[in-house]
């Protein structure tokens, strides 16, 4: 099973051309760039401290002007906190948790898949059966169970969401390792006396990374959705840290009073971020290997 592995110079140009031609991926990259800037420079960009309460200006409409002339672009919430500032800070948690969880899950999954595929036998059986059991369990329930016991916090959130993802990576890496194990260049490395560790990580690993970027892109999207859902349930990060999910949870109290902006903006932020990662995943897949369609 051969596969266009590492994009070459020519490949990079082709990737860019596909991206520009289909417009959507370009918009996705632009939005993600914007979101990353918001996450990185939130404190500089946001007009207010996201936790500063302003009891005079509670539930202010979007574009409301405060007594000191300051502008609340997207309005304020029930405690008079600026929605725009909270939104910008919220990008931090979503992106941080999204990427970190993928790093954890991808890391575990890649190592497990390499071991499973390279050694086979009981190692393979054990790892794959554990994966089967995990997939037989609706993931969000598992996350709820562990977060209730472990307590909330960015670290625990990353850990739980990350561990939830490893099986997908392990399965794909295992299948690719199985097919590469018998290839001539691996054979050659073995004949040259390379250590097993070196063969697994230096010879095999670089050749299976490309398709994983596709999985990772879709995965970031689904992890961000899960993070939002868990934050919405009150299982995410402590209340002092603004997140898109917890903003939506708070918006429910003022829904009947028709304070729509509290419910609309955080949701749009989540949707656009997730949409961008999904579009990016689609584009990467079409570019790298259309056959991956069956596996995602």
């Amino acid at each position, binding site marked *: 099973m051969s596969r266009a592995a590492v994009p070459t110079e020519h490949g990079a140009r082709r990737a860019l051309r596909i991206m520009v031609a289909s417009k959507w991926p370009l918009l996705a990259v632009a939005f993600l760039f914007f979101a990353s800037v918001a996450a990185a420079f939130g404190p500089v960009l946001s007009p207010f401290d996201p936790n500063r309460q302003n009891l005079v200006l509670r539930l202010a409409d979007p574009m409301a002007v405060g007594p000191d002339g300051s502008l609340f672009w997207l309005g304020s919430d029930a405690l008079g906190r600026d929605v725009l500032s909270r939104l910008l800070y919220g990008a931090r948690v979503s992106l941080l948790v999204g990427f970190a969880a993928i790093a954890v899950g991808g890391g575990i999954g890649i190592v497990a898949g390499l071991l499973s595929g390279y050694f086979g036998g009981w190692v393979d059986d054990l790892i794959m059966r554990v994966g089967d059991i995990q997939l*037989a*369990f609706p993931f*969000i329930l598992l996350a709820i*169970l562990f977060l209730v*016991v472990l307590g909330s916090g960015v670290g625990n959130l990353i850990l739980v969401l990350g561990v939830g993802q490893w099986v997908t990576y392990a399965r794909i890496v295992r299948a690719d390792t199985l097919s590469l194990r018998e290839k001539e260049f691996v054979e050659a490395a073995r004949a040259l006396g390379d250590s097993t560790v070196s063969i697994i990580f230096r010879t095999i690993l670089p050749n299976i990374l490309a398709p994983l970027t596709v999985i990772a892109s879709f995965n970031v999207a689904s992890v961000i959705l899960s993070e939002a859902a868990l934050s*919405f349930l009150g299982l995410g990060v402590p209340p002092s840290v603004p997140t898109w999910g917890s903003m939506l949870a708070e918006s429910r109290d003022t829904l009947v009073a028709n304070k729509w902006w509290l419910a*609309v903006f*955080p949701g749009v932020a989540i949707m656009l971020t*997730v949409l961008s990662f*999904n579009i990016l995943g689609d584009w990467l897949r079409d570019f790298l290997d259309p056959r991956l369609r069956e596996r995602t």
Partner: protein
Amino acid sequence: MGSYVLRRLLQSVVVIVGVTLVTFLALQAGGDPTYLFVSERASLEEIEAARRALGFDRPLHEQYLSYVGDLTRGDFGQSLSYRQPAMEIVLEALPATIELAIFSMFIAIVVAIPLGILSAINRGTAWDGSITTFAMFGQSIPNFWMGIMMILFFGLYLRWFPISGHVPFLTPLLAGDVGVAFANLPRTLYHLILPGIAVGTYSLARNTRLIRSSLLEVLEQDYVRTARSKGLSERRVLIHHAMRNAWLPVVTIIGLEFGFLLGGVVVVETVFSYPGIGRLLFAAINQRDIPLVQAGVTLLAGVFILLNLLVDLVYVRLDPRMKLSEGRA
């Protein structure tokens, strides 16, 4: 075929044991679980007494065995907030959750089929473009936010649909009141529409994409070309030849889909104050009512595993190749 069924049953038993192990270990993951059961102001003696009463002073494997022993008798312990057996409370909420899950699944499948077919047979046209764009958005909208938006628009602004509540159908049906159940049915469905769409949209979008790509692949097969060259009508080719095989990947993921739906149900129920297991779990989480969380999670996982087993068995019947190869699922 018999040996496949047997192996699949055995696999399910292993998975269920795995689930009990996970729910058991989850409780231990945060350190001494006694502290989850006693008040924050409890004295050292009270904590020690509670530890002994709950059995947390025993070795781990002993605790696990007695935990599994209790589970086989349906005993999940007392709910801390209701002071009732946790399983009873969860079982009471189960019918409402099943109603919502089935309704969402119905939307996710019944709407996805025509959309997927329409998209595939009109590949590259504006139809295809709008349907795939819709599917892309459908997979990116958080279900609970969709619920909130529908409450705002269809519930509060247009006032077309109720924004909360539930009218039971399964509960009277199971109690034998068939008349009451069917008298309730129209209002049951009326209350299910908004939460059902919120839960089902993600799966609807995914199924649409899946049916589209699966049908596109099948339409390129030789036997479809043969059918066409025999002069069969396009409709006949589609229904009698192409769709039969395009179904298979869809059936495979329906079981897994139920897991996604259950996850969605947990969150969306909270949005619509819908009295199912999800809202119960949400309350239990906030009150740190561990036995109730354990009971709810285990029950949902059990339902999920059972359903997956069923789907796999249906799959064997649908795909004759499975009978021959006796392949693994």
